[in-house]
């Protein structure tokens, strides 16, 4: 493996890790989606919104950094997917915009739209945000309708578009593939499960604790079913892979072969799924620490899945319109210079993770109580 290939693999790992952390942090969305199911009165909802509200920025920032890192390291994906599947991406953006203001404006006097409207914004984001992100990520396995020819740019006076979307639905066609729905639903219910475990961990209230514990199975069961359906479908279906000369070939059961070729990913996936299942069990048994198991398991599972989509010469964005247009980490990455420059910057990532962790611990060292939700300090 030469330096460029090493950097391409490294940056796919960084992207995958950011994606995995993002899915974990979607517990904020999950919690918003079940705001009324767990928070039955205003005080309970205030407690829930405030423990989530102290983390929404981190989720938001991870999404922005995920996008920025994708742009920087694999710009051809950014230009192809965002430009082509623009309806889906715009929908995702809109539900995140209304989330951002909802936290800050919800309890403010004279907020124009009323508290219930902002809570509705949180719920829309909680459901549509997680679902659509899951659907969008699923297309990394199931493919999309596009063609790519960089030299189209030479067609002065004609159509210079390098990436062209061949479906008039601009991304919405992904909703016609049940496998994309399966991952979308898995992410949605996973985010709810994580949120319930998070509430059990951070809110000092027996009613909310018990309600969260009981409801965790309701989130876990559809999550496990939809995830298994997606995994089964992906492992058994064909995928796009690049030959040594860059030619794309279609290979049956490609992702299964990938896990066989990279057993460390298979182990990570198995350990991740196991940790999530153990977290579900621990949560059901009333452990406040279930979030750490389900959270760590989520990160490992998503990391292994995303790595299997890009490593081993796999086309991480298969084209359904023209197989040769499929994007691999080799065909779509930035230059060696840029990847190396950013790799130096990424040395700061452990430091960033360190201070996030430290701050998280400092802020969550004391659980949210009812009296705190009634206080006159800054509240969401």
């Amino acid at each position: 493996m030469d330096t460029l290939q090493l950097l391409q693999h490294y940056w796919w790992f960084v992207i995958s890790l950011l994606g995995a952390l993002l899915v974990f942090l979607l517990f904020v969305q999950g919690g918003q989606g079940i705001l009324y199911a767990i928070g039955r009165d205003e005080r309970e909802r205030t407690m829930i919104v405030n423990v989530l509200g102290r983390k929404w920025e981190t989720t938001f920032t991870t999404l922005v950094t995920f996008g920025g890192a994708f742009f920087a390291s694999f710009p051809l994906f950014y230009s192809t997917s965002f430009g082509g599947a623009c309806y889906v991406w715009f929908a995702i953006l809109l539900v995140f915009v209304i989330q951002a203001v909802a936290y800050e404006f919800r309890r403010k006097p004279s907020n124009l739209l009323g508290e219930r409207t902002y809570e509705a914004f949180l719920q829309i984001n909680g459901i549509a945000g997680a679902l659509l992100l899951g659907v969008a990520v699923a297309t990394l396995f199931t493919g999309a309708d596009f063609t790519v020819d960089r030299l189209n740019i030479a067609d002065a006076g004609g159509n210079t578009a390098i990436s062209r979307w061949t479906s008039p639905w601009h991304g919405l066609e992904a909703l016609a593939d049940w496998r994309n729905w399966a991952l979308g639903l898995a992410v949605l219910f996973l985010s709810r499960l994580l949120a319930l475990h998070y509430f059990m961990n951070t809110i000092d209230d027996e009613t909310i604790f018990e309600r969260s514990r009981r409801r965790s199975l309701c989130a876990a069961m559809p999550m496990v079913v939809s995830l298994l359906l997606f995994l089964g479908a992906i492992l058994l279906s064909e995928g796009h892979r690049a030959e040594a000369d860059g030619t794309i070939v279609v290979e049956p059961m490609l992702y299964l072969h990938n896990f066989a070729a990279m057993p460390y990913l298979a182990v990570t996936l198995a350990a991740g799924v196991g940790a999530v299942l153990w977290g579900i069990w621990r949560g059901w048994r009333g452990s406040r620490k279930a979030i750490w198991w389900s959270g760590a398991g989520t990160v490992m599972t998503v990391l292994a899945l995303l790595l299997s989509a890009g490593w081993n010469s796999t086309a991480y964005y298969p084209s359904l319109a023209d197989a040769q247009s499929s994007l691999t980490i080799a065909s779509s990455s930035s230059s060696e210079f840029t990847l190396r420059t950013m790799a130096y910057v990424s040395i700061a990532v452990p430091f960033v993770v360190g201070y996030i962790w430290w701050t998280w611990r400092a802020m969550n060292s004391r659980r949210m109580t009812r009296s705190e939700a009634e206080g006159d300090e800054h509240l969401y």
Partner: protein
Amino acid sequence: MNDFLQTVDWSRAQFALTAVYHWLFVPLTLGLSVMIAIMETRYYRTGDEELKRMTKFWMRIFGINFAIGVATGIILEFEFGTNWSNYSHFVGDIFGAPLAIEGIMAFFMESTFIAVMFFGWDRVSRRFHLAATWLTAIGANLSALWILVANAWMQYPTGCTFNLDTVRNEMTSFGDVLLSPVAVDKFTHTVTSSFALAAVVVVAISAWYLLHGRERLLAKRSIALASVFGLIFSLAAALTGDRSGAVVARYQPMKLAAMEGLYDGERGAGLTVIGLLRCEESRSSNSDAFHFKIEIPKMLSVMSYRDSEAYVAGINDLLAGNPDEGIMSAGEKMRRGREAVAELERFRQARDAGDERTMEEIRRKFDPSTEEGESFLREYFAYFGYGYITSPEELVPDVPLLFYSFRVMVGVGTLMIVLFAIVWWLNRRDRLERRRWLLWIAIMAVPLAYMASQAGWIIAEVGRQPWAIQGMMPVSVAATDIGSASVATTFFIFLALFTLLLAAELRIMFKQIKIGPDKGDDKE
């Protein structure tokens, strides 16, 4: 106009709309975050509870603006992909890096510590809280650094070379991108002017309290800080703005000529202080461009080149060329650009025909390590973007918009310096409260400051037209071809959403100010 050109216009409108709304909130948070950190530092040192109350009040104002700034910011980032997909491929290798670094280095810092800043008063130590407040301010301003570096690169693309195999520009020097004169100037000017704007807002809200005889101590202390802060940074904005003139003259002469309504280049060119432009059809030279104007002789030459006799190019020079001054005509640049584009097209045909020999021949032309390649890249590919321009007139940005925006920005900026100086002096002598007219002026300065701030971005972005990347890629090639109806639809969705959120934000802000520092989060 065909559908694609309409798409380009709608995409420009959508990006402009998002940027305008985004920039309503960001400059306030950039400056306010620093002022809050200073207030809290004073509280930390003195233990004065009134300073803590003051810090918390301004923090609340900060929070209201911050959320909506973040919300509009994410749309801007993703619009590079959704609306400008060719752009994203063609320069993503360079442009993407600052965005990624912004996320890793600045956004996480900001988002992590802002939670401590708002909710950590009783959860972490005073020292930790103060550090969190400073880190939030540093994070906010660091994020401004990276996005402004990216924007500066669009104004002055440097530190890169074209790679024929990947058909894109690739970074060759991160230092050149980060420390280009345009990047340094853009960051310093934008941040200092944002600090000044934030100071205007703090002075105005405090003035409102004084007018109503409320929160007098908080208001006076806030004015004491904000007027000094504003004076320092509005002076700094003037200095960095002066440097901007010199930078624009060197790297974007058409922008400067349009800003000045300068049609014929001159030695010892004067700077127009005020003037009234004639309609477009009547403007063809310096003699018929204005109904009237007042100018400072030789000042434009001095500002542009630090030489009272320096030659400043006009619009006509840049279009028709001026061999005496070494200025190439737009027509010649277009001819060379077309040749560069044609070579790419020939490469495509050779690739499709499997003609390796021709491909190799063209590769040599694009190889900067050979003499032939170095010459072709310098003489022809340097004008690549001009190959898509169909008429030289396309190269002239909107002259009246630039001319008047520039005067609004400079005029208001000058007024701010005077206002801060007077307010600081009178507040220091404890005479401000009695000058009710001045307090009203301080309040009325807020919309003016925002107008000046927006005008600055109009100059930067409209002045770059028709380019997405100066000289390299026009907006018509950068845009995504997704159909004008699609972009028009999302434009109106964003317009409605942003306007609604702005109305809510303003209502909340006014209510918070009315309520004052105590119990601001309580519901009605």
